[in-house]
């Protein structure tokens, strides 16, 4: 069980293959949110405080209700490799400590994680109801103009997981290990 936000030391203490659960605040971001983060950073803009040092979840949730009265119906991970090209600069710009998704990310992203002190946590693909159940509360939403799936949602979670440390901050990757062992 890990309390968010993670410090750099917390992130570096994790090792590939470990199972963790998160409690605290996470934010969602998919393709378009990543693109917008980079646009704003390039213009020298300051983003909302909760973006910095965050745990970012690659997820386009199904959220019912309206402002202040949200209910997260489904919140499974989406395929992370779609963000491969933009993830490294986002990790650097925001000092992210954890990226949560499915399927893993490129070796380049792994290198950035190593230098910044960030981990990749694999959520179980399709486990949308189990993960949604551990969202206690929606704190708010940024960039709602991007639509429900692409907006940046702030979730307060408890016992969010199980998540597998699949890429750690020491250059190890469970995906690379599995790859080497394939018959």
């Amino acid at each position, binding site marked *: 069980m890990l309390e968010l936000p993670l410090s750099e030391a917390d992130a570096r203490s994790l090792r590939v293959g470990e199972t963790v659960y998160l409690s605290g605040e996470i934010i969602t971001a998919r393709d378009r949110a990543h693109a917008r983060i980079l646009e704003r950073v390039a213009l020298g803009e300051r983003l909302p405080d909760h973006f910095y040092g965050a745990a970012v979840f690659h997820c386009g949730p199904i959220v019912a209700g309206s402002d202040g009265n949200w209910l997260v119906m489904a*919140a499974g991970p989406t395929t992370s490799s779609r963000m491969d090209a933009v993830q490294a600069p986002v990790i650097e710009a925001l000092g992210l400590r954890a990226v949560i998704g499915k399927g*893993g990310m490129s070796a380049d992203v792994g290198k950035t994680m190593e230098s910044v002190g960030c981990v990749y946590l694999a959520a179980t*693909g*399709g486990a949308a109801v189990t993960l949604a159940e551990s969202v206690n509360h929606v704190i708010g939403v940024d960039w709602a103009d991007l639509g429900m799936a692409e907006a940046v949602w702030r979730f307060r979670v408890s016992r969010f997981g199980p998540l597998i440390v*699949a890429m750690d901050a020491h250059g190890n990757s469970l*995906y690379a290990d599995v790859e080497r062992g394939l018959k």
Partner: protein
Amino acid sequence: MRIAVPEPIEQVVANLLRLANTKLPMDVGWALEAAAGWERNPVATTQLGCIMDNVKKAEFMGRPMCQDTGTPVFFVSGRFDHTIAESIRKGVAIATSSIPLRPNAVDPLTRENTGDNVGVGFPSIHYEPSDGDLRIDLLVKGAGSENMTRLAMLNPSGGRKAVEDFVYGAVVSARGNPCPPTVVGVGIGGTADDCVRMSKEALAVPLDADNPDGELAGMEESLFVRLNSSGLGPMGLGGDTTVLGVRIKKAHCHTASLPVAVSLGCWATRRASATIDGDGVATYGQGGSF
């Protein structure tokens, strides 16, 4: 399940979508339980446990088990007329707002979303008229697995070995993307398009139904063992459980061709069917003999 009053086809279709999205077919559920029993890798055991927990919660709460409620693929057989497509499309639109389902239908180039899961050629509908009662089979196909579909026009001299090697490569090279453990649907023969269609039809065959063709049954068995020895594991994170089953269909093909197609069904291989009798009364099922 049987509701002994006549229902309009669009209502039957909406019921099928609710059933398929919220309740995993029993044979797929049992295959997951069996896998959890033999799995030795602790990370894999965690993944299978999380999947089964999710399936139970979804059924209990009546919610879609995955946020990607996919492309609905319908197979219509028996007696029907020209109005069937419109009824199915209406049913999909009703289910999209009432369950709700995620609106997934977009224009391929502008990416504009139609908002109700109905568009040109969406949902996908296949027809096979016959003299029996009307039957509608639904397969809910997520994009993570659909994107890993493979077709090869092999050299006929490669024979059975080349076919098995291609299927093996298609599953393993998909890595974690189709949310393994997967159900592997294989089509062999036909034309290129028929071959892909057969591979998808194969996903609608329950895992506990015996393949009537002895040679295909043997190939299913040997691919099942070989794929589960690959080491890929649930979500591509390693383990003994890469596939839940292999289902193969074949058709005659041109003497100079050997088409092979692979469609993957994610662990959430969602299906449901309804047989509608002459009075318009539907009987629902999800395949499997349990």
